[in-house]
């Protein structure tokens, strides 16, 4: 046989092998993402569901500075109504989990020691308007894509109860269904205080626990 034909035949085999390999390597197996986990041949990828409410590391405390008796202050960044002595930021809460969450809050101890009334310490939640925060939309109750503002969320200032012995810190609902997508998983928590007229001088402090919970009770 002419050697040209032998070489040509070998070259044909090799080129076919290369083309087959390319096809198999880059076309058939480009995107394997799972393995069968059942005898029925389903392909499944495990994603652990986790609930995770966290407080932003920048907006994590509220400090009203020096405050005067019978005056009202708040931390609202959207529409500050009550003048604060210093620039006061609200708290930024974020859902770091991979499921939606309800948020409840409770005050661990009383902030005032004078003869306060329930409305002297109030809270509400709002769409965040802080540097770097998510854009939740234009209307808190209609077009808000971060949480359900139309029901179950406290979007107007409401009394935050202090615990009284022997009652423990009591949880109140703050946010209904805070979403977990990275671009719409934030909510702002505002505090409004009115200083009782007979409040003694000195440092005031309280700790508020913000708790994330599965929104199973919300239809």
């Amino acid at each position, binding site marked *: 046989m002419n*050697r040209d034909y032998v070489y040509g035949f070998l*070259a044909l085999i*090799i080129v076919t*092998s290369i083309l087959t*390999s390319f096809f198999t*390597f880059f076309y058939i*197996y480009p995107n394997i993402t799972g*393995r*069968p*986990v*059942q005898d029925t041949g389903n392909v499944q990828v*495990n994603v*652990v*569901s*986790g*609930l*995770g*409410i*966290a*407080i*932003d*590391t*920048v907006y*994590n*405390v*509220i*400090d*009203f500075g020096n405050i005067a008796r019978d005056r009202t202050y708040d931390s609202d960044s959207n529409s500050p109504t009550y003048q604060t002595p210093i620039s006061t930021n609200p708290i930024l*809460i*974020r859902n*770091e*989990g991979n*499921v939606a*969450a309800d948020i409840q809050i409770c005050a661990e101890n009383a*902030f005032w020691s004078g003869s306060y009334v*329930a*409305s002297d310490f109030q809270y509400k939640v709002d769409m965040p308007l802080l*540097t*770097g925060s998510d854009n939740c939309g234009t209307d808190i109750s209609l077009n808000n894509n971060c949480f359900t503002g139309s029901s179950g969320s406290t979007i107007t200032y409401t*009394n935050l*109860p202090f*615990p*009284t012995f022997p*009652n*423990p810190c*009591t949880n109140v609902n703050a946010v209904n269904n805070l979403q977990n997508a990275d671009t719409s998983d934030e909510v702002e*928590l505002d505090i409004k205080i009115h200083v009782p007229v007979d409040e003694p001088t000195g*440092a005031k*402090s309280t*700790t*508020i*626990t*913000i*708790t*994330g*919970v*599965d929104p*199973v*009770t*919300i239809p």
Partner: protein
Amino acid sequence: MKYVKLIFYIFTFFLLSNYISAFLISPPKYEVDFESNAQIKLIITLINKPREDKELDTYIKYEFLHPIAKEELKNAFSLNSSKVSFTNQEDYIYFELLINFPENLSLVGTHDLRVGAVEAANEGQVAFRAGNEVRILIKNGNDTIITPPIINDGGGNNRPADQTQNIPRPLPTTRALNIDVLNITAKDVYKDEKSDIVIQVRNNENFNVYVTGIINILKENMVKEVITIPSTSLESLKTTNLKTLWDTKSADIGEYIVGATINYQGDSKNIATTMKIKEKNFLVVFSFRNMLLLLLILALIALIIITILFLLNKKKGIEILSVETKNILPNSIAEIIIRYKNHDNKYYKVYVDIIVIGINNNVVDKIGTDEEVLSKAEGSFEYNWETNNLIPGIYKIQTIIHYDNKKSEKIIEIKL
């Protein structure tokens, strides 16, 4: 001014790139059927995100239980640890909720217990701390959540403790189901490969049962990896293989304990085995994909080698393919036919010498031709040769084609 701008950019970068120091709790909820005097252990996972040193307090919250249920269940729950702490090397920590149900529960419905963890508060006038809770829904009869009555919180507010909603759920079974965890296998692998973990589970009930599972992979008593087996339906009276993969990329070489907990309605069962991650050596077993890549490279190398050989062996110039003779008889005119092939794609001026050599290697005759242009790629020269002066015997005929200061020759033997 330049530096002010730079500082502004750096400040903006840090402000916008601040990360959240968070912990996650998993799963977000458990659903447990009440069973008289049953003992149940639930494992709750805390996830360190991102990894950092952190201390957490764990707690059980009875606030959302009806006072009657709260009294009946007051000794039913306990945690194995009231404090847990992450190190910056740990992704997960576990704590356990142990349930010892009482003889009876008076209220029919679903009770909402909370188990959670909370981190330390920051410093500030109004300081905040984050916590996350697992709902433990204890079902006694139906899906309606039983809420406590309105609570006076002492601060001037009356508030509902929770809302009452219906949770769609499958029909209940109040006894522990008859499930056997038969076997677990975990394949030994080389470093960076994926190990198949297979758990054989038999459903002895005459209806399908859903199970979930957690696989803890331990080395030297430290949990190195946790894999969750999602809710899977087991066919009635059949054995099912629950399969999953462990990617060993982030694991060290050595021996591991693979322990699985299979959870199902009313109970859970544990099973464990061992597996090894081996060091890769020269005889690493290639994956199918690697084999394809290797074949591809080998084929390319072979192609290059063959091409080189082909080019090296390619013939050039004029080749004498054959020399034939006809009518080789004494005192006659014989024919000599020289077949040639021109391997080059060009015209050559050629001439031919034919030398007849006797038995003693002496030249007995010589034929020369005029120069001519070779126009064909393949053809023949034909010459007549007078044999008048030759005696019978054996002769050699040497044919030479001269071209372009080169020559191509061939010798044949003839008998006169």
